[in-house]
């Protein structure tokens, strides 16, 4: 009887030890998941073969946005204003995502977005601008945007755009 109780007790202790280890592993695993989420692990979307067009007249922003997309594995082209964005589509090119600045010479982002939608372009268009007044954002959205982000663009803001537009689903 005593031996039996010892056997049962030992078994229970082993079970408790295993549970503790299991729970410890779970907590550690969850911690790591949260840590990486907070650290903003950068997804690589090269396999998805997404393409993007950067529409911005500012050379600094062109370089940064081009590099941000590159970093995420998204092949991209760059144009300097809305008219060039329209022209590149007229030439037969098409993109999954367009990052559209608002203030540009010749044709601004609002005009370009409206024109692209009139042409039947169904690409996802995300407006990116330093202007964040409610009325201006509303006008930009109503032109045909799918999403909007305030500049300066960062990796996490770009990932947010991709998530909002269903290009990226975090595992």
């Amino acid at each position, binding site marked *: 009887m005593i031996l039996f109780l010892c056997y049962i007790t030992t078994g229970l202790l082993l079970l408790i030890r295993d549970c503790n280890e299991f729970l410890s592993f779970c907590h550690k695993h969850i911690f790591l998941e949260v840590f990486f989420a907070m650290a903003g692990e950068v997804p690589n979307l090269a396999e998805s073969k997404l393409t993007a067009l950067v529409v911005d*007249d*500012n050379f*600094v922003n062109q370089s*940064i946005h081009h*590099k941000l997309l590159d*970093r995420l594995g998204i092949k991209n082209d760059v144009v300097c204003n809305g008219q060039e964005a329209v022209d590149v589509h007229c030439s037969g090119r098409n993109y999954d995502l367009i990052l559209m600045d608002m203030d540009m010479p010749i044709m601004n982002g609002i005009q370009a977005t409206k024109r692209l939608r009139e042409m039947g372009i169904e690409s996802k268009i995300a407006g990116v601008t330093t202007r964040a007044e409610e009325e201006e954002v509303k006008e930009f959205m109503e032109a045909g945007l799918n999403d909007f982000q305030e500049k*300066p*663009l*960062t*990796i996490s803001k770009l990932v947010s755009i991709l998530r909002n537009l269903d290009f990226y689903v975090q595992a």
Partner: protein
Amino acid sequence: MLGLGVDRLQADINRLLTSLFHQGVLDEQFLQLQQLQDDTSPTFVYDVINIYFDESEKLLRSLRLLLMDREFSDYKKIGLHLNQLVGSSSSIGARRVRNVCVAFRSASELNNRPGCLRGLEVVEHEYHYLKNMMHELFQLEQQRLLAAGVRYPM
């Protein structure tokens, strides 16, 4: 011994960056730029900052020409130039330059010529300070890379 040289230079770089962040000259957007630098573009930060300098100097020259004209009245053009400066300064993390450009832009929106002239002087001052600091940073980085590249035979 050479390792100490690299360490000392790295410490100098860290000290300079800390100071620039502490003064509000740079903000976290500069760190974003550094994060984008990698093996495929090892001079990315240097390249982007130099594009910023080239573009900013053109804009500042244009602003000065506009405001020096006694018959100047094109405040809209001033606003457009300042939008560019605000945008690019934000994008590289040049917080103080960005902020003084915003103040300058407010003066231009009120068609306030004396305010614009003052604004331009402040922007030029902040811009040149930033440029000098960035040059110092790049020089230290260059020295660090050179020091790290020297090897004693083992």
